[in-house]
Protein backbone atom coordinates (compact mmCIF):
# COMPACT_ATOMS: atom_id res chain seq x y z
CA UNK A 1 0.00 0.00 0.00
CA UNK A 2 2.85 2.33 0.88
CA UNK A 3 6.17 1.87 -0.84
CA UNK A 4 9.23 3.89 0.07
CA UNK A 5 12.26 3.84 -2.22
CA UNK A 6 15.72 5.15 -1.38
CA UNK A 7 14.49 8.06 0.73
CA UNK A 8 17.14 10.68 1.57
CA UNK A 9 16.62 13.76 3.71
CA UNK A 10 19.13 16.30 5.01
CA UNK A 11 18.70 19.39 7.12
CA UNK A 12 21.59 21.52 5.96
CA UNK A 13 24.68 19.37 6.36
CA UNK A 14 23.00 16.96 8.73
CA UNK A 15 21.92 13.85 6.88
CA UNK A 16 18.87 12.53 8.73
CA UNK A 17 17.67 9.82 6.35
CA UNK A 18 20.30 7.88 4.44
CA UNK A 19 18.25 5.90 1.98
CA UNK A 20 15.17 4.21 3.41
CA UNK A 21 13.51 1.37 1.49
CA UNK A 22 10.40 -0.33 2.77
CA UNK A 23 6.82 -1.27 1.99
CA UNK A 24 3.76 -1.36 4.19
CA UNK A 25 0.79 -3.54 3.31
CA UNK A 26 -2.86 -2.77 3.68
CA UNK A 27 -4.22 -3.34 7.22
CA UNK A 28 -0.69 -3.66 8.49
CA UNK A 29 0.43 -1.97 11.71
CA UNK A 30 4.09 -1.02 11.55
CA UNK A 31 5.79 0.33 14.65
CA UNK A 32 8.97 2.33 14.15
CA UNK A 33 11.34 2.27 17.09
CA UNK A 34 14.83 3.57 17.65
CA UNK A 35 16.86 6.08 19.65
CA UNK A 36 16.19 9.83 19.59
CA UNK A 37 17.59 11.52 16.52
CA UNK A 38 17.53 8.32 14.51
CA UNK A 39 15.23 9.88 11.89
CA UNK A 40 11.99 8.09 12.84
CA UNK A 41 9.85 11.21 12.89
CA UNK A 42 11.48 12.65 9.79
CA UNK A 43 10.78 9.38 8.00
CA UNK A 44 7.10 9.65 8.94
CA UNK A 45 6.90 13.31 7.97
CA UNK A 46 8.48 12.62 4.58
CA UNK A 47 5.70 10.13 3.82
CA UNK A 48 3.03 12.86 3.76
CA UNK A 49 5.58 15.47 2.69
CA UNK A 50 5.43 17.69 5.76
CA UNK A 51 9.15 17.40 5.09
CA UNK A 52 10.36 17.28 1.51
CA UNK A 53 12.85 14.51 0.84
CA UNK A 54 15.81 15.45 -1.35
CA UNK A 55 15.94 12.09 -3.03
CA UNK A 56 13.84 8.98 -3.28
CA UNK A 57 10.18 8.22 -3.77
CA UNK A 58 7.08 7.45 -1.74
CA UNK A 59 4.08 5.71 -3.30
CA UNK A 60 0.57 5.39 -1.92
CA UNK A 61 -1.45 2.73 -3.76
CA UNK A 62 0.86 3.06 -6.73
CA UNK A 63 0.56 6.84 -6.94
CA UNK A 64 3.81 8.71 -6.44
CA UNK A 65 3.36 11.06 -3.47
CA UNK A 66 6.77 12.63 -4.01
CA UNK A 67 6.15 13.52 -7.68
CA UNK A 68 6.52 17.28 -8.21
CA UNK A 69 3.07 17.48 -9.79
CA UNK A 70 1.35 15.18 -7.27
CA UNK A 71 -1.89 16.60 -5.84
CA UNK A 72 -0.49 16.56 -2.33
CA UNK A 73 -3.57 18.11 -0.71
CA UNK A 74 -5.75 15.29 -2.02
CA UNK A 75 -3.18 12.64 -1.09
CA UNK A 76 -2.87 13.99 2.45
CA UNK A 77 -6.61 13.48 2.93
CA UNK A 78 -5.87 9.78 2.59
CA UNK A 79 -3.08 9.87 5.18
CA UNK A 80 -4.24 10.94 8.62
CA UNK A 81 -1.57 12.21 10.96
CA UNK A 82 -1.42 12.39 14.74
CA UNK A 83 1.27 14.56 16.33
CA UNK A 84 3.25 14.30 19.52
CA UNK A 85 1.96 17.70 20.68
CA UNK A 86 -1.65 17.08 19.50
CA UNK A 87 -1.82 20.34 17.52
CA UNK A 88 -5.55 20.69 18.09
CA UNK A 89 -7.01 23.97 16.87
CA UNK A 90 -7.36 25.93 20.13
CA UNK A 91 -9.93 28.40 18.75
CA UNK A 92 -12.33 25.61 17.79
CA UNK A 93 -14.40 23.30 19.98
CA UNK A 94 -13.59 19.60 19.88
CA UNK A 95 -16.56 19.06 17.56
CA UNK A 96 -15.38 21.83 15.23
CA UNK A 97 -11.86 20.39 15.31
CA UNK A 98 -13.27 17.17 13.92
CA UNK A 99 -15.80 18.65 11.46
CA UNK A 100 -13.53 21.33 9.98
CA UNK A 101 -11.73 19.01 7.58
CA UNK A 102 -14.83 17.25 6.19
CA UNK A 103 -16.69 20.57 5.77
CA UNK A 104 -13.93 22.76 4.34
CA UNK A 105 -11.91 20.19 2.43
CA UNK A 106 -14.46 17.60 1.39
CA UNK A 107 -17.34 20.07 1.10
CA UNK A 108 -19.55 17.94 3.34
CA UNK A 109 -22.69 19.49 4.82
CA UNK A 110 -22.49 20.62 8.42
CA UNK A 111 -25.13 18.11 9.60
CA UNK A 112 -23.42 15.19 7.91
CA UNK A 113 -20.00 16.20 9.24
CA UNK A 114 -21.39 16.57 12.76
CA UNK A 115 -22.98 13.13 12.56
CA UNK A 116 -19.64 11.61 11.67
CA UNK A 117 -17.80 13.71 14.25
CA UNK A 118 -20.14 12.75 17.09
CA UNK A 119 -19.74 9.08 16.20
CA UNK A 120 -15.95 9.43 16.15
CA UNK A 121 -15.85 11.35 19.42
CA UNK A 122 -17.95 8.61 21.01
CA UNK A 123 -15.62 6.03 19.58
CA UNK A 124 -12.63 7.67 21.28
CA UNK A 125 -14.66 7.98 24.48
CA UNK A 126 -15.34 11.72 24.34
CA UNK A 127 -18.95 11.86 23.20
CA UNK A 128 -19.80 14.22 26.04
CA UNK A 129 -17.00 16.70 25.28
CA UNK A 130 -18.18 17.96 21.90
CA UNK A 131 -18.66 21.63 22.86
CA UNK A 132 -15.54 21.96 24.97
CA UNK A 133 -12.44 23.87 23.88
CA UNK A 134 -9.11 21.98 23.75
CA UNK A 135 -7.70 24.05 26.63
CA UNK A 136 -10.23 22.38 28.94
CA UNK A 137 -9.12 18.85 28.04
CA UNK A 138 -6.38 16.69 29.55
CA UNK A 139 -3.47 15.60 27.37
CA UNK A 140 -4.92 12.15 26.83
CA UNK A 141 -8.28 13.61 25.86
CA UNK A 142 -6.63 16.06 23.46
CA UNK A 143 -4.79 13.26 21.73
CA UNK A 144 -7.97 11.24 21.39
CA UNK A 145 -9.71 14.23 19.79
CA UNK A 146 -6.70 14.56 17.46
CA UNK A 147 -7.16 10.93 16.43
CA UNK A 148 -10.88 11.56 15.81
CA UNK A 149 -9.98 14.64 13.76
CA UNK A 150 -7.66 12.61 11.54
CA UNK A 151 -10.18 9.77 11.20
CA UNK A 152 -12.91 12.19 10.10
CA UNK A 153 -11.18 12.51 6.74
CA UNK A 154 -11.62 8.73 6.31
CA UNK A 155 -7.95 8.13 5.54
CA UNK A 156 -6.53 4.93 4.12
CA UNK A 157 -3.56 5.05 6.46
CA UNK A 158 -2.84 6.69 9.80
CA UNK A 159 0.57 8.09 10.69
CA UNK A 160 1.30 8.42 14.39
CA UNK A 161 4.27 10.55 15.42
CA UNK A 162 5.09 9.60 19.02
CA UNK A 163 1.44 10.00 20.04
CA UNK A 164 2.04 9.27 23.72
CA UNK A 165 5.46 10.85 24.28
CA UNK A 166 4.17 14.12 25.73
CA UNK A 167 1.50 12.54 27.93
CA UNK A 168 1.52 12.04 31.66
CA UNK A 169 2.06 8.31 32.34
CA UNK A 170 -1.49 7.72 33.57
CA UNK A 171 -2.91 8.97 30.26
CA UNK A 172 -0.80 6.85 27.94
CA UNK A 173 -3.09 3.85 28.32
CA UNK A 174 -6.28 5.55 27.15
CA UNK A 175 -4.63 6.71 23.93
CA UNK A 176 -3.00 3.36 23.21
CA UNK A 177 -6.37 1.71 23.81
CA UNK A 178 -7.96 3.82 21.06
CA UNK A 179 -5.07 3.01 18.74
CA UNK A 180 -5.39 -0.66 19.51
CA UNK A 181 -9.10 -0.61 18.60
CA UNK A 182 -8.21 1.12 15.37
CA UNK A 183 -5.63 -1.56 14.56
CA UNK A 184 -8.17 -4.31 15.25
CA UNK A 185 -10.60 -2.66 12.84
CA UNK A 186 -7.99 -3.10 10.13
CA UNK A 187 -6.63 0.43 9.79
CA UNK A 188 -3.23 0.62 8.14
CA UNK A 189 -0.98 2.34 10.65
CA UNK A 190 2.60 3.54 10.90
CA UNK A 191 3.40 4.31 14.51
CA UNK A 192 6.61 5.99 15.63
CA UNK A 193 6.72 5.11 19.28
CA UNK A 194 8.72 4.48 22.41
CA UNK A 195 5.97 2.20 23.78
CA UNK A 196 7.65 -1.17 23.33
CA UNK A 197 4.70 -2.96 24.91
CA UNK A 198 2.37 -1.53 22.27
CA UNK A 199 4.78 -2.34 19.45
CA UNK A 200 5.04 -5.93 20.61
CA UNK A 201 1.36 -6.46 21.24
CA UNK A 202 -0.27 -4.52 18.38
CA UNK A 203 2.42 -4.22 15.72
CA UNK A 204 2.51 -6.69 12.86
CA UNK A 205 5.99 -5.59 12.00
CA UNK A 206 8.59 -3.52 13.79
CA UNK A 207 11.16 -1.25 12.13
CA UNK A 208 14.30 -0.44 14.06
CA UNK A 209 15.90 2.78 12.87
CA UNK A 210 19.26 4.25 13.86
CA UNK A 211 21.35 7.04 12.34
CA UNK A 212 18.97 7.49 9.44
CA UNK A 213 19.06 3.87 8.39
CA UNK A 214 16.41 1.18 8.65
CA UNK A 215 18.70 -1.18 10.50
CA UNK A 216 16.38 -4.12 11.04
CA UNK A 217 12.79 -5.09 10.44
CA UNK A 218 10.76 -8.09 11.40
CA UNK A 219 7.83 -9.36 13.39
CA UNK A 220 7.68 -8.15 17.00
CA UNK A 221 8.95 -11.46 18.27
CA UNK A 222 11.86 -11.44 15.81
CA UNK A 223 12.86 -7.93 16.82
CA UNK A 224 12.22 -8.12 20.54
CA UNK A 225 13.14 -11.73 21.29
CA UNK A 226 15.81 -12.41 18.74
CA UNK A 227 17.32 -9.21 17.35
CA UNK A 228 20.07 -9.83 14.78
CA UNK A 229 21.64 -6.40 14.45
CA UNK A 230 24.05 -5.46 17.29
CA UNK A 231 22.58 -1.96 17.35
CA UNK A 232 19.09 -3.32 17.82
CA UNK A 233 20.38 -5.50 20.59
CA UNK A 234 22.10 -2.63 22.34
CA UNK A 235 19.06 -0.32 21.97
CA UNK A 236 16.65 -2.93 23.29
CA UNK A 237 18.91 -3.81 26.18
CA UNK A 238 18.64 -0.17 27.27
CA UNK A 239 14.88 0.25 26.92
CA UNK A 240 13.47 -3.12 27.89
Amino acid at each position, binding site marked *: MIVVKNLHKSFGKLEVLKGIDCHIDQKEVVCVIGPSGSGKSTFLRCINRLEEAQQGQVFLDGEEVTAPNADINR*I*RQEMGMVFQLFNLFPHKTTLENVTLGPIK*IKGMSEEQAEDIAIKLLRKVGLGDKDHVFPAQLSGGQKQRVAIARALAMQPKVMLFDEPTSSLDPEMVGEVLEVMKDLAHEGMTMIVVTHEMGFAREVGHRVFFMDEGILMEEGTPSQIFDNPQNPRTQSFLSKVL
Partner: protein
Amino acid sequence: MNLGFTSTEWIFGTIILDRLNEIHGFQVVANNLGNFAMGAVLTLEITLFSLLIGMVLGLIAALGKMSNNQLIKFVAVAYIDFFRGTPLFVQILLLYFGIIPLIFDATPVQAAIIACGLNSGAYVAEIVRAGIQAVDKGQMEAARSLGMTHGQSMRYIILPQAFKIVIPPLINEFVMLLKDTSLVSAISAHELTHTGKMLYASTYQAVWVWGAVCVFYFIMTKAISMLGDWTERRLATE
Protein backbone atom coordinates in the same frame (compact mmCIF):
# COMPACT_ATOMS: atom_id res chain seq x y z
CA MET B 1 -37.53 69.24 37.04
CA ASN B 2 -34.56 68.64 39.31
CA LEU B 3 -32.87 65.77 37.39
CA GLY B 4 -32.46 63.81 40.62
CA PHE B 5 -30.31 66.40 42.35
CA THR B 6 -31.20 67.62 45.85
CA SER B 7 -32.03 71.30 46.13
CA THR B 8 -28.69 72.00 47.84
CA GLU B 9 -26.78 70.35 45.03
CA TRP B 10 -28.90 72.19 42.51
CA ILE B 11 -28.08 75.53 44.11
CA PHE B 12 -24.36 74.72 44.33
CA GLY B 13 -24.32 73.58 40.76
CA THR B 14 -26.00 76.73 39.59
CA ILE B 15 -23.50 78.86 41.51
CA ILE B 16 -20.53 76.99 40.02
CA LEU B 17 -22.00 77.28 36.54
CA ASP B 18 -22.56 81.00 37.05
CA ARG B 19 -18.95 81.43 38.20
CA LEU B 20 -17.67 79.44 35.21
CA ASN B 21 -19.78 81.46 32.84
CA GLU B 22 -17.92 84.54 33.96
CA ILE B 23 -14.73 82.96 32.56
CA HIS B 24 -14.36 83.82 28.90
CA GLY B 25 -12.50 80.63 27.96
CA PHE B 26 -15.29 78.49 29.35
CA GLN B 27 -17.81 80.40 27.30
CA VAL B 28 -15.74 79.88 24.18
CA VAL B 29 -15.66 76.13 24.78
CA ALA B 30 -19.31 75.90 25.84
CA ASN B 31 -20.53 77.87 22.84
CA ASN B 32 -18.48 75.76 20.45
CA LEU B 33 -19.30 72.27 21.73
CA GLY B 34 -21.10 71.60 18.46
CA ASN B 35 -18.00 72.54 16.45
CA PHE B 36 -15.80 70.35 18.62
CA ALA B 37 -18.22 67.48 18.22
CA MET B 38 -18.25 67.92 14.44
CA GLY B 39 -14.45 67.98 14.44
CA ALA B 40 -14.37 64.87 16.60
CA VAL B 41 -16.77 63.05 14.29
CA LEU B 42 -14.57 63.86 11.29
CA THR B 43 -11.50 62.70 13.24
CA LEU B 44 -13.28 59.45 13.93
CA GLU B 45 -14.31 59.11 10.29
CA ILE B 46 -10.76 59.68 9.04
CA THR B 47 -9.47 57.21 11.62
CA LEU B 48 -11.99 54.50 10.80
CA PHE B 49 -11.53 54.71 7.03
CA SER B 50 -7.75 54.86 7.44
CA LEU B 51 -7.87 51.86 9.73
CA LEU B 52 -9.95 49.95 7.20
CA ILE B 53 -7.42 50.71 4.46
CA GLY B 54 -4.58 50.03 6.87
CA MET B 55 -5.92 46.62 7.89
CA VAL B 56 -6.43 45.47 4.30
CA LEU B 57 -3.04 46.80 3.16
CA GLY B 58 -1.40 45.52 6.33
CA LEU B 59 -2.71 41.98 5.85
CA ILE B 60 -1.65 41.98 2.19
CA ALA B 61 1.77 43.46 3.00
CA ALA B 62 2.31 41.00 5.87
CA LEU B 63 1.53 38.01 3.63
CA GLY B 64 3.64 39.63 0.90
CA LYS B 65 6.61 40.01 3.19
CA MET B 66 6.36 36.32 4.12
CA SER B 67 5.89 35.25 0.50
CA ASN B 68 8.39 33.05 -1.29
CA ASN B 69 7.96 35.14 -4.44
CA GLN B 70 10.91 37.53 -4.42
CA LEU B 71 9.13 40.28 -6.39
CA ILE B 72 6.06 40.30 -4.12
CA LYS B 73 8.34 40.23 -1.09
CA PHE B 74 10.40 43.15 -2.41
CA VAL B 75 7.33 45.30 -3.06
CA ALA B 76 5.91 44.54 0.40
CA VAL B 77 9.20 45.27 2.17
CA ALA B 78 9.72 48.50 0.20
CA TYR B 79 6.22 49.68 1.08
CA ILE B 80 6.62 48.88 4.78
CA ASP B 81 10.11 50.39 4.96
CA PHE B 82 9.10 53.64 3.26
CA PHE B 83 6.02 54.33 5.37
CA ARG B 84 7.67 53.33 8.64
CA GLY B 85 10.91 55.09 7.82
CA THR B 86 9.61 58.55 6.98
CA PRO B 87 7.48 60.94 9.09
CA LEU B 88 3.71 60.75 8.66
CA PHE B 89 3.59 64.54 8.51
CA VAL B 90 5.88 64.59 5.49
CA GLN B 91 3.92 61.74 3.89
CA ILE B 92 0.71 63.74 4.24
CA LEU B 93 2.31 66.78 2.57
CA LEU B 94 3.91 64.68 -0.17
CA LEU B 95 0.68 62.86 -0.95
CA TYR B 96 -1.69 65.83 -0.74
CA PHE B 97 0.42 68.40 -2.57
CA GLY B 98 2.57 66.13 -4.69
CA ILE B 99 1.34 62.71 -5.67
CA ILE B 100 -2.44 62.58 -5.31
CA PRO B 101 -3.04 65.67 -7.56
CA LEU B 102 -1.29 63.77 -10.35
CA ILE B 103 -3.95 61.08 -10.12
CA PHE B 104 -7.19 62.80 -9.14
CA ASP B 105 -8.56 65.89 -7.49
CA ALA B 106 -8.83 64.91 -3.82
CA THR B 107 -10.44 66.81 -0.95
CA PRO B 108 -8.25 67.28 2.12
CA VAL B 109 -10.27 64.61 3.94
CA GLN B 110 -9.80 62.07 1.13
CA ALA B 111 -6.09 62.83 1.03
CA ALA B 112 -5.93 62.51 4.81
CA ILE B 113 -7.59 59.09 4.70
CA ILE B 114 -5.27 57.89 1.94
CA ALA B 115 -2.13 59.13 3.71
CA CYS B 116 -3.09 57.81 7.14
CA GLY B 117 -4.31 54.53 5.63
CA LEU B 118 -1.07 53.94 3.75
CA ASN B 119 0.96 54.80 6.82
CA SER B 120 -1.12 52.65 9.14
CA GLY B 121 -0.91 49.70 6.73
CA ALA B 122 2.85 49.56 7.16
CA TYR B 123 2.54 49.30 10.94
CA VAL B 124 -0.38 46.87 10.79
CA ALA B 125 1.69 44.69 8.42
CA GLU B 126 4.38 44.22 11.05
CA ILE B 127 1.78 43.60 13.75
CA VAL B 128 0.04 40.97 11.61
CA ARG B 129 3.32 39.34 10.62
CA ALA B 130 4.34 39.06 14.26
CA GLY B 131 0.91 37.62 15.06
CA ILE B 132 1.08 35.00 12.31
CA GLN B 133 4.57 33.98 13.36
CA ALA B 134 3.46 33.71 16.98
CA VAL B 135 0.99 30.96 16.07
CA ASP B 136 2.53 27.57 16.82
CA LYS B 137 4.16 25.91 13.79
CA GLY B 138 2.26 22.72 14.55
CA GLN B 139 -1.02 24.42 13.68
CA MET B 140 -0.04 24.85 10.05
CA GLU B 141 1.27 21.27 9.96
CA ALA B 142 -1.93 19.88 11.44
CA ALA B 143 -4.05 21.82 8.94
CA ARG B 144 -1.89 20.76 5.98
CA SER B 145 -1.84 17.14 7.17
CA LEU B 146 -5.64 17.08 6.94
CA GLY B 147 -5.33 18.09 3.30
CA MET B 148 -5.96 21.83 3.49
CA THR B 149 -4.20 24.08 1.01
CA HIS B 150 -1.82 26.72 2.33
CA GLY B 151 -4.55 29.33 1.77
CA GLN B 152 -7.22 27.35 3.61
CA SER B 153 -4.86 26.73 6.52
CA MET B 154 -4.14 30.45 6.73
CA ARG B 155 -7.80 31.38 6.53
CA TYR B 156 -9.35 28.86 8.90
CA ILE B 157 -6.50 28.08 11.29
CA ILE B 158 -3.65 30.59 11.36
CA LEU B 159 -5.32 33.96 10.83
CA PRO B 160 -8.14 33.49 13.38
CA GLN B 161 -5.53 32.65 16.01
CA ALA B 162 -3.20 35.42 14.87
CA PHE B 163 -6.13 37.85 15.05
CA LYS B 164 -6.59 37.09 18.73
CA ILE B 165 -2.89 37.62 19.37
CA VAL B 166 -2.80 40.94 17.53
CA ILE B 167 -5.83 42.56 19.16
CA PRO B 168 -3.84 44.39 21.86
CA PRO B 169 -1.18 45.78 19.48
CA LEU B 170 -3.88 46.51 16.90
CA ILE B 171 -5.89 48.50 19.43
CA ASN B 172 -2.69 50.35 20.26
CA GLU B 173 -2.23 51.10 16.57
CA PHE B 174 -5.86 52.26 16.37
CA VAL B 175 -5.29 54.70 19.24
CA MET B 176 -2.02 55.95 17.74
CA LEU B 177 -3.71 56.40 14.39
CA LEU B 178 -6.54 58.41 15.91
CA LYS B 179 -4.05 60.72 17.59
CA ASP B 180 -1.89 60.94 14.46
CA THR B 181 -4.83 62.18 12.39
CA SER B 182 -4.28 65.50 14.19
CA LEU B 183 -1.45 66.02 11.68
CA VAL B 184 -3.88 66.31 8.80
CA SER B 185 -5.01 69.66 10.21
CA ALA B 186 -1.99 70.89 8.23
CA ILE B 187 -3.85 70.28 4.97
CA SER B 188 -7.01 71.91 6.30
CA ALA B 189 -9.12 68.84 6.88
CA HIS B 190 -11.64 70.16 9.39
CA GLU B 191 -11.07 67.54 12.04
CA LEU B 192 -10.75 68.08 15.77
CA THR B 193 -7.30 69.67 15.86
CA HIS B 194 -8.21 71.97 12.99
CA THR B 195 -11.34 73.01 14.90
CA GLY B 196 -9.07 73.83 17.84
CA LYS B 197 -6.69 75.81 15.63
CA MET B 198 -9.49 77.94 14.19
CA LEU B 199 -11.04 78.57 17.57
CA TYR B 200 -7.70 79.40 19.15
CA ALA B 201 -6.85 81.80 16.32
CA SER B 202 -10.06 83.74 16.92
CA THR B 203 -10.12 83.67 20.74
CA TYR B 204 -6.53 83.10 22.02
CA GLN B 205 -7.94 80.94 24.82
CA ALA B 206 -5.06 78.45 24.63
CA VAL B 207 -5.69 76.52 27.84
CA TRP B 208 -9.44 76.20 27.38
CA VAL B 209 -9.43 75.45 23.66
CA TRP B 210 -6.54 73.01 23.59
CA GLY B 211 -7.67 71.53 26.90
CA ALA B 212 -11.06 70.83 25.39
CA VAL B 213 -9.44 69.31 22.31
CA CYS B 214 -7.48 66.96 24.60
CA VAL B 215 -10.64 65.95 26.43
CA PHE B 216 -12.35 65.09 23.15
CA TYR B 217 -9.36 63.04 21.97
CA PHE B 218 -9.16 61.28 25.30
CA ILE B 219 -12.83 60.30 25.26
CA MET B 220 -12.37 58.73 21.85
CA THR B 221 -9.14 56.87 22.65
CA LYS B 222 -10.57 55.61 25.93
CA ALA B 223 -13.63 54.31 24.10
CA ILE B 224 -11.36 52.43 21.67
CA SER B 225 -9.35 50.78 24.46
CA MET B 226 -12.56 49.71 26.17
CA LEU B 227 -13.79 48.24 22.88
CA GLY B 228 -10.48 46.35 22.68
CA ASP B 229 -10.82 44.94 26.19
CA TRP B 230 -14.36 43.83 25.41
CA THR B 231 -13.29 42.10 22.19
CA GLU B 232 -10.46 40.30 23.98
CA ARG B 233 -12.81 39.04 26.67
CA ARG B 234 -15.31 37.87 24.10
CA LEU B 235 -12.74 35.89 22.14
CA ALA B 236 -11.25 34.21 25.19
CA THR B 237 -11.44 30.41 24.91
CA GLU B 238 -9.62 29.51 28.11
